[in-house]
């Protein structure tokens, strides 16, 4: 390692030699950096997971434009939209199809282990509005009280989910009715529910008698192939006379939901602060280690100053130490962070895990913030006055 660093820096790797001279302190410093990395990884993992979980239900559908109530910040939030606006939208020549989408949470009492499905009520005659995996099974929903269940839902065992087929359906009680699951799809647990479920709009209205077929939660629209979605959306805003409605492209609706979850919901802010705290902890640890190291070697540094070494040399030593701490601390942080995220993903059924982009981002951040800490620590070098050596 010494030879490699000597080759890289073109001088004795004094930073490395200093750090490894006191191995106990070096290991403690690496553990501190690794700990800060783990903190950031876990918080980032949860934030990413929230993003993935937020966007996941949007992937179940295939639409170009979504009309929602003014307070519908998320797919499962907000008031209803009158179906008449869908008919109004058809007045635009580029709008080719529409479907009302009902959304609500449906509990399933499993005897002390209740789970909750974010449930979509859809028109079984409109498979074009669904992702291929679900569209292929939608015909089953034409039968009243039939459901397609999320096989990755939290609280549903994998064996139990795998057994669900039209030949071996799974029936369960909810909202004083019996639903029969005939098939499954891959959804996944989220922060608002344990999983997802598809039923027909008629079954949905049976489960929720207070809801009206004329007022779905959202209206999904498809436009003519090649049509400009932004232009159609803009025209619809002029065409539909209710100014309180949110008429957005489907992609924008998904992104706005994501921003809302990350920036306005307490959970998103908490995880964001978690990342910030991880970064600050890392900064403080590296600064403390380097600052103490500089203080410990002030006399040696003063000697080097007397010998004619300039400020760039000392900055180089501290940056070398910062890079070593940042890089070597990152590796165990990555390993432990990956293990924790994997474990958390298995326990919670949330889409938690290490991603390459997350690892690269944290690595670059670790190196940058370590060097920043090191640069701050060099201010203590001013106290190394070679004139005091005599």
């Amino acid at each position, binding site marked *: 390692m010494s030879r490699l660093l*000597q080759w890289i820096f073109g*001088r*004795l790797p*004094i930073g490395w*030699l*200093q750090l*490894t*001279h006191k191995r106990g302190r070096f290991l403690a410093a690496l553990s501190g950096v690794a700990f800060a990395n783990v903190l950031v990884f876990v918080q980032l993992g949860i934030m990413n997971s929230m993003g993935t979980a937020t966007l996941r239900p949007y992937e179940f559908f295939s639409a170009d434009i979504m009309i929602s109530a003014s307070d519908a910040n998320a797919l499962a939030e907000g008031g209803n939209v009158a179906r008449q606006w869908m008919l109004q939208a058809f007045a635009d020549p580029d709008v080719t199809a529409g479907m009302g989408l009902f959304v609500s949470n449906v509990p399933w009492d499993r005897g002390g282990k209740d789970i909750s499905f974010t449930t979509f009520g859809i028109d079984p005659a409109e498979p074009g509005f669904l992702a291929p995996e679900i569209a292929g099974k939608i015909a089953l929903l034409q039968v009243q009280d039939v459901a397609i269940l999320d096989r990755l839902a939290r609280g549903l065992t994998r064996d139990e989910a795998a057994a669900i087929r039209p030949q071996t359906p799974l029936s369960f009680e909810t909202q004083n009715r019996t639903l029969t699951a005939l098939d499954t799809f891959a959804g996944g647990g989220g922060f608002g529910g344990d999983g997802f479920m598809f039923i027909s709009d008629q079954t949905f209205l049976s489960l929720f008698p207070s809801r009206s077929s004329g007022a779905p939660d959202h209206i999904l629209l498809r436009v003519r192939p090649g049509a400009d979605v932004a232009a159609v959306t803009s025209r619809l805003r002029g065409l539909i006379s209710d100014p309180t409605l949110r008429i957005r492209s489907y992609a924008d609706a998904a992104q706005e939901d994501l921003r809302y979850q990350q920036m306005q919901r307490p959970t998103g802010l908490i995880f964001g602060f978690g990342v910030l705290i991880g970064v600050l902890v890392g900064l403080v640890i590296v600064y403390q280690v380097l600052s103490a190291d500089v203080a410990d*070697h002030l*006399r*040696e540094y*003063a*000697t*080097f100053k*007397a*010998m*004619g*070494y*300039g400020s760039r040399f000392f900055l180089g030593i501290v940056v070398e130490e910062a890079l070593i701490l940042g890089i070597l601390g990152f590796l165990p942080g990555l390993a432990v962070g990956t293990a924790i995220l994997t474990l958390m993903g298995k326990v919670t059924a949330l889409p938690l895990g290490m991603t390459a982009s997350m690892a690269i981002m944290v690595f670059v951040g670790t190196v940058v913030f370590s060097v920043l800490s090191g640069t701050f620590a060099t201010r203590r070098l001013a106290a190394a006055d*070679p*004139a005091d*050596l*005599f």
Partner: protein
Amino acid sequence: MGSNMIVEARGLSHWFGDGEARKQALFDIDLALPRGSLTVLMGPSGSGKTTVLTLLGCLRGVQNGTVGLLGHELHGASEAELTALRQRLGFIFQSHNLHESLTAMQNVIMGVQVRPGVPDELARSAATQALGLVGLSDRLDYLPANLSGGQKQRVAVARALVGNPALVLADEPTAALDKDSAATIIDMLKRLGAERGTTTLLVTHDNRILDRADRILTLEDGRIVSIAGGT
């Protein structure tokens, strides 16, 4: 400055502190060190010996008077100029000031590496030779913690001399050494003076050294009060 003079100071005065606390440490010092000479600077504590060393060693800025060092005027010199000049000097401190994380060899290499562009192999070879001169060929890879006080001081001497400096400034270099080691060091400085023209200014209270000095300057209260053995 005479061509044979490594250092030539004229009217050198120096003060410490500000305002009411301002105190003059040196008074109108005139001093010249010929190339290859070994000069001993003596005097009681507080007489200004250390101040002279730090001024000639470019470790403090010259406030008043002129100091010519290796052909450069130190009065008004920039920090970068002073740093560059220090690379041509050798310092031996009373305390060895070795870097605890570096081996004897690595500590001495630091004395060569300060000059950019010195190949690694050349630096190692020079360091090995310098440690051989001070009798530590068998301690190249020892950390300071594993060396005796005298051995550490000899490593510090090797570090000061490895770059073949034009001027060596030494503060009580033999204080931690036994009689033989002290004699070896002083003989080596004398020999370097004769062979390479290395000039040495040495602060000491060690009477064993006085008879080997070319000149002895005595400072009292910031003034040179006597010069023995030369001008």
